[in-house]
């Protein structure tokens, strides 16, 4: 009998290990296990953070992992605004649930010049608490990785955002795996923002591809939309890496006042909008020289000065 119990125990432990490798929650294992003791259903809520959009949460199996790495990539530097925006929206969601409010943004020098440095006033309006917002600008990628590991391991931060440009050889699968394991051990999320990068094997649990979408219009107090206004940002996201076999594309809108995501509505043409902008005007370039001048007579001997 005792032997049987030990065997059961071992079997259960093995199943649990396999479940962990597959990323399932131990509760599911407990349900599948007919005789095993039911584990307390604590795992699911504490390890995932729901984005608040049902379809998306289903695809993410409950939400974004709080003990792992999530990768957000953009295909070109010009989309850095959308990438940063989506990462920061995720950070705002995490921050709302975490007990620590500090955030660390680790930039690389190039992205900092090219896309600008995070602007705390803008971040606060975006729905983040910026009292303990830290920005790091390490000289080398190795330093950045060390910093990300140290930050994940310390208990002080709600989330760590690591910004990398492109696909540097110093950040490959092994480094990504190392970071991911560190995040898992420390139970802290790492958000990896990769600008202008290609798809690459990585150890992140999910990978999103972010592009900007046309912003939602501002909502007027009577519920109608103000045509031509620029309201909440909309991201055109593709969930590239997940357990789903096919990539999932959707338009997600971030409402910074309520700090929540919603699926963007297909904007219906409102009465005021149409092609006109808030400041409608001609699209033609301003004429500089008046009407076209008459053709010169005779043979061209020398060009006029261009400047």
């Amino acid at each position: 009998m005792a032997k049987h119990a030990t065997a059961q125990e071992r079997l259960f432990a093995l199943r649990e290990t396999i479940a962990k490798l597959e990323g399932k929650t131990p509760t599911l294992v407990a349900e599948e296990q007919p005789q095993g003791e039911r584990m307390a259903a604590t795992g699911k809520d504490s390890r995932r953070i729901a984005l608040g959009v049902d379809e998306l949460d289903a695809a993410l199996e409950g939400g974004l992992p709080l003990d792992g790495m999530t990768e957000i990539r953009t295909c070109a530097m010009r989309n850095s605004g959308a990438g940063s925006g989506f990462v920061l929206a995720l950070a705002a969601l995490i921050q709302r649930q975490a007990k620590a409010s500090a955030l660390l943004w680790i930039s690389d020098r190039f992205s900092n010049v090219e896309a600008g440095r995070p602007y705390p006033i803008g971040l606060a309006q975006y729905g983040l608490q910026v009292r303990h917002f830290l920005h790091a600008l390490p000289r080398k990628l190795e330093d950045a990785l060390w910093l990300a590991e140290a930050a994940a391991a310390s208990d002080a931060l709600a989330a760590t955002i690591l910004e990398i440009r492109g696909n540097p050889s110093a950040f490959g699968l092994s480094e990504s795996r190392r970071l991911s394991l560190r995040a898992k051990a420390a139970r802290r999320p790492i958000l990896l923002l990769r600008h202008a990068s290609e798809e690459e094997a990585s150890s992140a649990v999910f990978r999103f591809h972010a592009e900007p979408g046309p912003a939602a219009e501002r909502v007027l107090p009577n519920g109608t939309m103000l045509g031509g206004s620029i309201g909440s940002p909309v991201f055109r996201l593709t969930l590239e890496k997940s357990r789903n076999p096919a990539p999932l594309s959707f338009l997600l809108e971030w409402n910074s006042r309520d700090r929540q995501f919603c699926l963007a509505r297909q904007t219906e043409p409102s009465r005021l909008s149409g092609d006109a902008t808030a400041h409608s005007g001609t699209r033609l370039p301003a004429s500089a020289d008046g009407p076209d001048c008459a053709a010169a007579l005779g043979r061209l001997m020398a060009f006029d000065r261009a400047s």
Partner: protein
Amino acid sequence: MRLTALDEVAAGLGLRHGQGLAEARAMYPAIDVAEEDPAADRALLEAIADWCDRYTPLVALDGSDGLFLDITGCTHLFGGEQALLDDILLRLLQMGFKVQGAISGSPGLSWAMCRFGQGGVIEDGGGEEMLASLPVACLRIGGETIAALNKLGLKQVGDLLAMPRAGLARRFGGHLLLRLDQALGHEEEPISPRRPVALLSIERKLAEAIQAEEEILELAARMALSLRASLEARGVGGRVFELVLFRVDGRVFRISAGASRPLRDPQKIAELFTERLKSVHDELDAGFGFELFRLNVLQHDPCEASQDNLLGKAEGGAPLADLIDRVSARLGEDVLQAFQLRESHIPERAIFAHPALRHEAETEGKPNPAAMTERERPLRLLARPEPVEAFAAIVPDGPPSRFRWRRVLHDVARAEGPERISPEWWLDQETAQERDYFRLEVASGHRFWVYRQGHYADDYRPTWHMHGIFA
């Protein structure tokens, strides 16, 4: 080229200072000549001064070849003045320096005895007769004054002492009498130490030199433990610490580490140096080991005592401060930055970034100043506004219909604005121009923050700039 310094052999051959090199070579073709390198000489003197830190924290450089050590209150640690002097001279001799030393009540007298006398320890009150037989050059006065004194037959200090002071002052100025008084100890003469004196300092001398990083850190932790009582007595905690390592062969290393809050805990202080040692790993060459350690507190701030609980652990850790300390120690304090808001409407001035290590705790609780505007601000602000080529802007106050930024042409789909921000005339010139900010969404969905500087006028075309990026 001329000879500027001679060693003993060369001096014995009869070569002189200021002699031409060609002449010296003609006399003795076999001499070795090294070109003078004042910077290297200076570095060597600095290194020796660093080494002398082991005797007293007050070490000052004197010209290009001398050092002043203020040993007030230090002599008993080395067994008296004579023993201290013997120790310094012997150790320097073993390192290969020929050194003359003197200890006396005033820097001037020591200087004179070193360079013109026999050196050694001069008792108080014995200065006058010692000086009397020395040449007047020993008073640290200019060459012209020496020449003038010699012309008058005043060759030794004793001759000067016999003269009436009023006449000397009239003829040679007050400087001569000042130097004379300083040498005799009638006039105080402070020396200017090279480094600020540490607020608190603790030292360990080892019988056997240590090399390993772990041993150094353990020793640092033990020194920090001894330091704790002094910090507690003053009611302060250290903000900047410095670990000074004296290597066996005389080289001195200084490693400083800052903390984001006043620290007293020996373990935390040791952790600071753990990271620092990792970052300076290559530069810290242990060689044959370090024999003398000193832990200095260079800056301290008042700190509230935290009471340990019964388990012997302080309650309420500050993990964020620990992280900041670690990162700043390892990567340098400029790497990690925190932000502070300032009262300004100019976007780039409203935010002030500074090292997180220096982030003052009390500013956190302040209410948001005017910088926290209701107007929308971008997520990322470019370090400096970049020029934009704008086309078909609506005159006078409208957004452009399209613009070119970084060689890409964008068609404006929607625009909001303008938000007018006036220049701060008390900082900028009075002629500074207003900025009209627009939020623009282009056809591809990107959202930008663009401003026009100035207004359209008959003879003026304002410039457009890209300043930030929205989500």
